[in-house]
Structure formats: C-alpha cells, structure tokens
C-alpha cells in the first residue's frame, strides 16, 4: 500500500480531554474518523497539540505511523 492511499479526509473529529486509564498520559489528544483515499473509514489519532495542527472536518490528513494497532496521522 502506498503512503498516499493511507491518507484521507476528516469525516468527524474530537479532542479527548477525559481519557481511558490506558491513555491517561496522552490526553488531551485528537481522535478522528477519516475517509481513506483508498476507500473505507478508519478511526485514527491526529498528532499535534498546537491549534494550527488541529484537523477539522474536510481537512486532509496524512499517515505518519502505526503503533500498537493505532494509526497516527498529521494534518496535511
């Protein structure tokens, strides 16, 4: 799979302030459901804590890495 096919468009998103125990150290973090260019939807993390790094509905996001089964993205 090329990197580009893993990129996508934000369908919806939120910033999680009250995390589950397992991700307490990450909070606040951005979670998004994205429409993949290759088709289908995926629930992913969007990296970055600064306001300009925040992805909104309709924004393009690019794949960064997959860690422990979680896909991490960044606003394009």
């Amino acid at each position, binding site marked *: 799979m090329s990197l580009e096919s893993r990129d996508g468009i934000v369908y*919806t998103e*939120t910033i*999680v302030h*009250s995390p*589950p125990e397992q991700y307490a150290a990450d909070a606040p973090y951005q979670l998004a459901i994205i429409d993949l260019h290759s088709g289908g939807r995926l629930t992913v993390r969007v990296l970055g804590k600064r306001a300009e790094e925040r992805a909104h*509905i309709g924004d393009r996001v690019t794949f960064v890495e997959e860690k422990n089964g979680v896909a991490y993205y960044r606003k394009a």
Partner: protein
Amino acid sequence: MNAILKYMRPVAVIGIGKTAFGAFPDRDLRSLAVEAIEHALGDANAPSSAVEAFYLGNFAGPSFVGQNHLAPYIGASVGFESIPCTRIEDACASSGSAFFHAWQSVAAGIYDVVVAAGVEKMTSQPTPRVTEILAGAGDMSGEGRAGATFPALFAMIARRHMHQYGTTREQLAAVSVKNHANGAKNPQAHMRKVITLEQALAGKPVAEPLTVYDCSLISDGAAAVVIVPLERAREFTSRFAKVLAVAQTSDHVALDTKADITLFPAVKSAGEKAYKMAGLGPKQIDVAELHDCFTIAEIVASEDLGFVEKGSGGPFAAAGCTAINGPLPINTSGGLKSKGHPVGATGVGQICDVVMQLRGDAGERQVARHRIGLTQNLGGSGATCVVTILEAAQ
C-alpha cells in the same frame, strides 16, 4: 400480518419499582436490585412466589464489582425459587433488552408473571477505570484501541451533526438545562440541580464539543417492573399500563462502519416497528423518555423517532418544545443527564418513569396529556435499541 402481532397475547405492566439513582458507597449491587424488585412486587400486589421467570439487565457487574452469575444471585435474595433467572447484556440497553425478552415470554404464552429488572453499581471504580469499562461497549479492536471513549464517540456524532445540520452548542446545552430542570423536581434523581445555559456552555470539556454538562452521570441504581398478560392485570391492580409495543433492533458496533453517523438506524427501525405494532405514529405520543446518554443523543433520537424532521432536533429542543409544559415533553424524569445513568438499570428505569406519568403519579413533573408514552433505550453508540410504547389503563 406479522406472526408476532397475530398470535401474541397483550401484556400489561402491573408494578414498578426503582431505587434512587446516585452514588451510594454503602450499598452493594445486590441490595440495590433487591430493593427495586421488592418495590415493584409490592406495587403489583404480587408475592415473589408468583414470579415464573426473571430477566436481569446488567452491563458490567463483573468489571465494576467483580461479581458474575448475577441473575440467580439476586433472584434467590428476592425469594425466587426454581425459576429461570437470566442476565442480559446489551451495553446501556441491557435492561431494555431484559424487558423485551420478558415481554416475549409473556406475549408468547410461556409465563404469566415475569419480572424484568436492571441494575448497575458503577461508583466503586475511579472515573478513568469507569471510562475504560464503558468503552468496552464499543469496538475494542478499532475505535477503542485508538482511544475512543464513549464521550468521544458521541462528540464525533455531535460534530458531524453540527456540520451537516447547523446544530449549535447552545442547542446541545438547552437539552442539558431542560433535563436538569426536570431532574431537580425528581426526588429519586442523582443530580437535583438547576443549571443555566451559561453554566452548561462553560462546562469543563470532556470530548470537544461536549462538556461535563453534555454527559450523563456515573451512577448506582436499580429498577424493576412486573408484567402479566393484560387479561390478568386486574387480578393484581387497577393501576396497570398496557404494553402496546416493544421492539428491539441492532446495528454495527463500530461508529466508523456506519454510512451516516448523524442518525441511528437501530433507533429508526425500532421506532418504526414499535409504531406499526402499536398501530399509531409519533404524533400520538404524549410523553417520552429518550436515551440522553449525551445531549446530542436526545436530539438525534427525537429525529430518528419521527418527532421532528431530520436535522431539526436541536432547534426543537432549544425552543422549549420538549419541556414538561411543551407540546412533546421528553425526559420529564431528568433523563440520564440529571436522574442518572446506572447503565444496566436505565431501560427499565425509563419504563418506570413513563408508567408514573401514565398513572398521573409524577407530581410536580406531571404532564397534562398522559395517555400514551414511549421509551427509547440505546446500547453503545447505537448498536442496540429498544423502543416501548405504553398506554394508560382506561
């Protein structure tokens, strides 16, 4: 005609019983359930020895309090002897589902006197652990692993609803303000506190755009009902309610597998089935208890059940249409937001609240027209829905 409608026996709710919902450090799960069931049996004028089957809704007793095998554990304490005692788990719709199965067994002619109850004891765990246990009602292989809490899933639904229909933060907050106003008048509610729109808007963020004032409470509590065939109801009481319809439907668990997250297909299908079974439509509903686990959920459910057009749930709530004195009172109990949400108890709790309204027993919260009531109980982010329609005894 559907075989169910052709052959089923009409069913009546003859007794209701609830504990207060709240944080009760000195109470255990069993004592809460026993209290609710004993109230319901007393209300029905039925001895425990008359009960032929027991269905218990509970989401996560094993995780919250380390106890499994809950139905006989509670049933034996109430005095049920040698009857089928079964626990049902369908996330936050566990006791709605318990009611559905109890109703089936009476409607089908298998049993006459059946108890459906629900219980949850949540406050013995710290909030991050509760959050993690609740997340298990989502898809832990995908969204859960990525860090989706339940507030996060509903926050993403809210964001999309705002994007597609122009729903505003103020409209979400209006649901919370209304439910708190109602709950403040309910002696059994968890958080009896009136709040202002300004307070609701300034709440601490949980998952943006949702604040603490958009999220239901972590509560302990139990609720129970006794049901019998309608033809036997008067042997017990004149204060029964007729069950006009019960429908349970399902959908995908993971939010990212749905085409449009601004609606709940399971709510729509359960509503349509229930209206068909009852032979009426949304316009005939006088009072409703909807599953406001989050403010956005009440708005979406009011659309999916046909009370308003798709996308109009926000303005409908903000205009006061769902207040106790509005054209369609929703969550006169205070809803999950103010009354509390001991998840396994919620579905049967909603039925108790609607029966109170149908009987004219809701005190300060009593609505003017109260012949037909509806309850809608949602599991997870929409993978289970149970809708009931009840009618006051003539």
